[in-house]
């Protein structure tokens, strides 16, 4: 009984500073973020996204150059957008957005965000389940499966989901500890798995690699039913696959713990190991699978890794899924909790974990990961532009930051207009301009900036707060340690 009370006390003592700036004593050095990001981006998604480039017929040259440039742009976005905003306000995206857009708007945004995070975490639980199910001879899902494939699959997913949820319930520190330990080992397994299978692809010396890479692995010919990927697809996908996190500002929740904004550069460990080395490694593994299975439709990262390097490979898929699902569940919990701050973090995370686990039972979540990641980043991007402009540009233009907080308004129409107009613009480009979803984020961001500036000027023109000059509000003062 006393043990149970201790556990509840421990859970209730988890304070993630959801509605206050992070105190100086709680700030973390850049080392914490190296582990977190390396763990998060060398992850279960890599077992799915790496093979995508093979399936879509990207060439070897496009892979090497497109991933390099796209990943550099992603790191710069994390540092100069998310890092700068997070260390200036020390607030979660959700609370910052509430100050700008109002509680009613933020509630809608948080719900959209939480659903997206649940789906992402759910797909990672599915990935991990494909490895956990190996000893039970579980029927693996295929590329075209959408519904649960068997009772064994559902039970496996529930087991993985329960453990993931319990870890996430104990808060950010537990996630950091877990990711720190797993990250270096995980990247070793990714590399080892790819190197081990090279002879089976006909690569017996370093000199053999490039010709086979060009002709067999990334042949430049898409699989049947898939569109052809070019350099631009690869580059923009590498840049925008985490758009919700960097330009969309979701990682303010993580980087607000950073002593300096430059901690944003710590993301380079994650993107270059995970979105470069691991994508190439998983592409090699998938290419071999296609070659040896005569283009089978079965798509299960667990058995592919197990076949390459045995039990260590299967454990890698499980842990890779966990290290992505854990921080994603944590973010989803924060998003839901900001709707009612009185809710305990651990109870919210438990609820979110249950929903996520149910969603993970549907293989469609994993099979459609590419489309989902692109859509999710695009939907959240306009609010990231709003937050960035509100913090850094509005005060310089004589306009008020945190309009909703200052005016005690529950809905800032400028933000609503910006979100709506930007999404309509992007959908229009997609439908009528035939521009693929991967390319919409860049023009969309500029549209969001322009619309927010104009609409803020119009909204604040008639507002009382615009009468006085606009100094930095107390809540916006920098609290970074230099």
């Amino acid at each position: 009984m006393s043990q149970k009370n201790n556990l509840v006390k421990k859970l209730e003592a988890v304070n993630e500073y959801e509605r206050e700036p992070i105190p100086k004593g709680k700030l973390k050095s850049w080392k914490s973020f190296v582990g977190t990001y390396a763990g998060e981006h060398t992850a279960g998604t890599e077992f799915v996204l790496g093979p995508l480039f093979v399936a879509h017929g990207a060439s070897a040259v496009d892979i090497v150059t497109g991933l390099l440039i796209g990943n550099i742009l992603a790191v710069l976005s994390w540092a100069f957008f998310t890092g700068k905003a997070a260390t200036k306000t020390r607030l979660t995206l959700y609370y910052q957005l509430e100050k700008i857009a109002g509680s009613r708007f933020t509630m809608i945004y948080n719900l959209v965000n939480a659903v997206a995070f649940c789906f992402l975490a759910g797909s990672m639980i599915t990935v991990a389940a494909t490895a956990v199910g190996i000893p039970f001879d579980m029927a693996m899902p295929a590329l075209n499966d959408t519904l649960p494939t068997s009772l064994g699959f559902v039970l496996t997913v529930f087991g993985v989901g329960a453990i993931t949820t319990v870890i996430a319930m104990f808060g950010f520190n537990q996630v950091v500890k877990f990711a720190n330990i797993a990250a270096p080992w995980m990247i070793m397994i990714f590399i080892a798995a790819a190197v081990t299978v090279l002879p089976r692809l006909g690569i017996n010396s370093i000199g053999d690699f490039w010709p086979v890479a060009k002709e067999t692995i990334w042949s430049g010919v898409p699989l049947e039913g898939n569109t052809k990927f070019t350099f631009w697809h690869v580059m923009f996908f590498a840049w925008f696959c985490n758009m919700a996190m960097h330009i969309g500002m979701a990682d303010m929740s993580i980087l607000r713990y950073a002593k300096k904004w430059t901690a944003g550069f710590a993301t380079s460990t994650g993107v270059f190991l995970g979105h470069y080395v691991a994508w190439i490694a998983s592409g090699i593994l998938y290419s071999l699978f296609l070659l040896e299975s005569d283009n089978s439709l079965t798509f299960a990262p667990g058995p592919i890794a197990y076949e390459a390097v045995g039990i260590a490979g299967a454990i890698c898929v499980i842990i890779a899924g966990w290290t992505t699902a854990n921080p994603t569940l944590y973010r989803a919990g924060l998003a839901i909790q900001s709707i009612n701050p009185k809710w305990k973090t651990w109870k919210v995370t438990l609820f979110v974990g249950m929903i996520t686990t149910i969603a993970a039972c549907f293989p469609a979540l994993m099979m459609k990961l590419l489309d989902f990641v692109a859509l999710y980043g695009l939907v959240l991007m306009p609010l990231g532009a709003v937050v960035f402009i509100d913090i850094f540009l509005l005060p310089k233009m004589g306009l008020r930051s945190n309009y909703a907080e200052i005016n005690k308004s529950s809905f800032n129409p400028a933000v609503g207009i910006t979100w709506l107009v930007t999404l309509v613009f992007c959908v229009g480009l997609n439908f009528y301009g035939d521009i693929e979803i991967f390319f919409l984020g860049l023009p969309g961001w500029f549209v969001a900036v322009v619309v927010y500036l104009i609409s803020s000027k119009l909204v604040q023109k008639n507002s009382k707060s615009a009468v006085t000059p606009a100094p930095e509000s107390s809540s916006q003062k920098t609290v970074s340690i230099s």
Partner: protein
Amino acid sequence: MNNLIKLISFLALALTIVPSFLVFSGVINADLCKTLMFIGTVVWFITAPKWMNRETEEA
């Protein structure tokens, strides 16, 4: 003691990747590689928690 545990951790980490290059070179077979990688994995997860997070907390 801490340095010894660290050394064991790094050796375990090496054991997860070096065998794959030995397979590539034709020195060992894939089955031995899988066994060595599994041993490296177990030793890593036993030893790394004893020093990794402590260093992060002190930083």
